[in-house]
């Protein structure tokens, strides 16, 4: 759970040149940021790269911060993840034209359920599940972050968990 005021104060202090606040900002946000990136890229190594870029960008652009720290950082994360994704897609095309590509194995063996969730759920469904179920965010907080209504979050959460349960059931039957 996050302390909204504390984070906001740290962002303002960083904006005013107090670098020591970066620690708090990172601690308060990195899990959320990672989910947002991962929901787009669905690849842990790539998500780690983008996670680094996000905090570099936060540091560089802190003077532009005005309010809603989490939403602001999330929008940076989403943009960078999408840029990364597009860039990689382009590179892949040109790479395949020249050299036979080696298929990448993106599966995360240690976290099979999260891996499954990221594969079968939509981006916002995945984020909602991770934030509401794992990080214990309130639904209205998640709604605010992703510009949804609270009932929309409730519905999507229910729908996503159901989807996940069905898929898990299917996989268990197969094995």
């Amino acid at each position, binding site marked *: 759970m996050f302390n909204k005021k504390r984070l906001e104060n740290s962002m303002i202090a960083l904006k005013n*040149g107090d670098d*020591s606040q*970066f620690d708090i900002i990172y601690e308060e946000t*990195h899990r959320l940021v990672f989910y947002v990136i991962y929901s787009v890229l669905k690849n842990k190594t790539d998500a780690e790269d983008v996670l*680094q870029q996000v*905090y570099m960008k936060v*540091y560089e652009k*802190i003077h532009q911060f005005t309010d809603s720290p989490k939403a602001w950082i999330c929008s940076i994360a989403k943009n960078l993840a999408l840029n990364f994704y597009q860039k990689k897609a382009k590179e892949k095309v040109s790479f395949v034209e020249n050299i036979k590509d080696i298929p990448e194995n993106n599966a995360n063996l240690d976290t099979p*359920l999260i891996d499954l969730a990221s594969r079968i759920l939509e981006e916002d469904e995945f984020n909602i599940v991770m934030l509401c179920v794992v990080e214990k965010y309130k639904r209205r907080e998640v709604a605010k972050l992703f510009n949804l209504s609270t009932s929309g979050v409730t519905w999507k959460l229910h729908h996503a968990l159901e989807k996940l349960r069905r898929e898990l059931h299917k996989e268990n039957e197969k094995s």
Partner: protein
Amino acid sequence: MRNLKKQLVKESKTFVPDLKDQIYQSIGYRKMRPKLSIKRSLVYSLMLSIGLILSLLTFLNLQSVSNSYVIIEINPMVELEINNKDKVTDVSSLNVDGFFLLENIDLIDKKIEEALLILLNEAEKQGYLQTEDSKLTVSAINKNDLLETKIASRIKETVEKHRPGIVRSHDEWKEKAAELGISLGKMVLINQVMGADSNLTIEEALTMDHKALMAILKENAQTKVEKFKEQYRKNLKQLKNEYERNQKVLEGKRAIVENHLETLKTILSSLKKPEQFFRLVDRFFPEFYYNPTEVSNLWDLLESIESYYEEYFVFYDEMVNDNLEIKIASYRAKVHENAKNGIDDFNLVLDDAFWLIDLPNKYTKAEKDVLKLINRIHVLINNNYRGASEKISFLYKEYLEKIALVSEDFRQNEFVLNFEQVYRDFLEESDL
């Protein structure tokens, strides 16, 4: 369903990586240093105490000998305090313009004549007293009438020697001063104080000595000047913070590139397939463009990556410095110009102009020039002030010359297109 949720929570513990150290390294952030040892802190406290005592002694000494005030009013209004050795012991600006006049000159400990000449030269340098009929007023105030007259005539003589006929006399107050039985200097001061504080009556003012009157004048001016000074310094600090942040980002990027190059060098000899190497190059150096089919030697490829980034960092450094320079110059120009024209806008607009685009090639000379010009014009547009338009159109002409020399790809870059839109918007607004 409960098991499913439990499982998600369990997995999430290893799922989210902690990249704190790498991120801190890349932005150049260091944790706070450990506290000083007792020994060192004792030495520092002792040094600090000695420093404080010395400055207190100096301060007391200056206060005890300070005995005259000189006020100079051009448009900038400043006050000098001089001691019985005719040396300047303190200077204050009595308006925002005065702050700029004093900003880059040091008058402390100078003989009053020398200090006046420095002030006049600085005022001329800043665009004041440019016309033939330019005037300024000088007044001296001392509790001793005789001494006051002596100082007044000396300063008038000094200024007149520099620019004959420039001093506007206070003749209109002579009669009134005689009528009230006070010196001309005090009369002029009372008039200035009453102008600054409309609640003060002449009867009240007459009961005050020159120090008390000067204190009211300064206090009134300071409310405005201090407010401005605080904002001005805060904004300059913000610019310097931004500069330091950019420098740290640069250092961080440099450290990452160096690390990646080291990694590649270490594994190069043991690599079996060049594809693996290309994969790493793509991942580590996304800005670097090359064609894997044209690579015959991987060591050569490494060398070209190294030289690409060397050049990239030199340019980045240039841009960071240029960015600070133009922003400070532009901000100072804006507030100075506004102060001159009585406009109360001293805000600083930070902008997003400083941005290095990831070009798939090394920047050419013309491309670098274009990026610098975009940065400069952007800053001027954002901090628009009277007089900025001329500079903007001058720089834009230069921009048009340089943009003709760059590739079509560069011209079509989002950054360049955005800038052109910003410029068009600026022109439209200017027309309005």
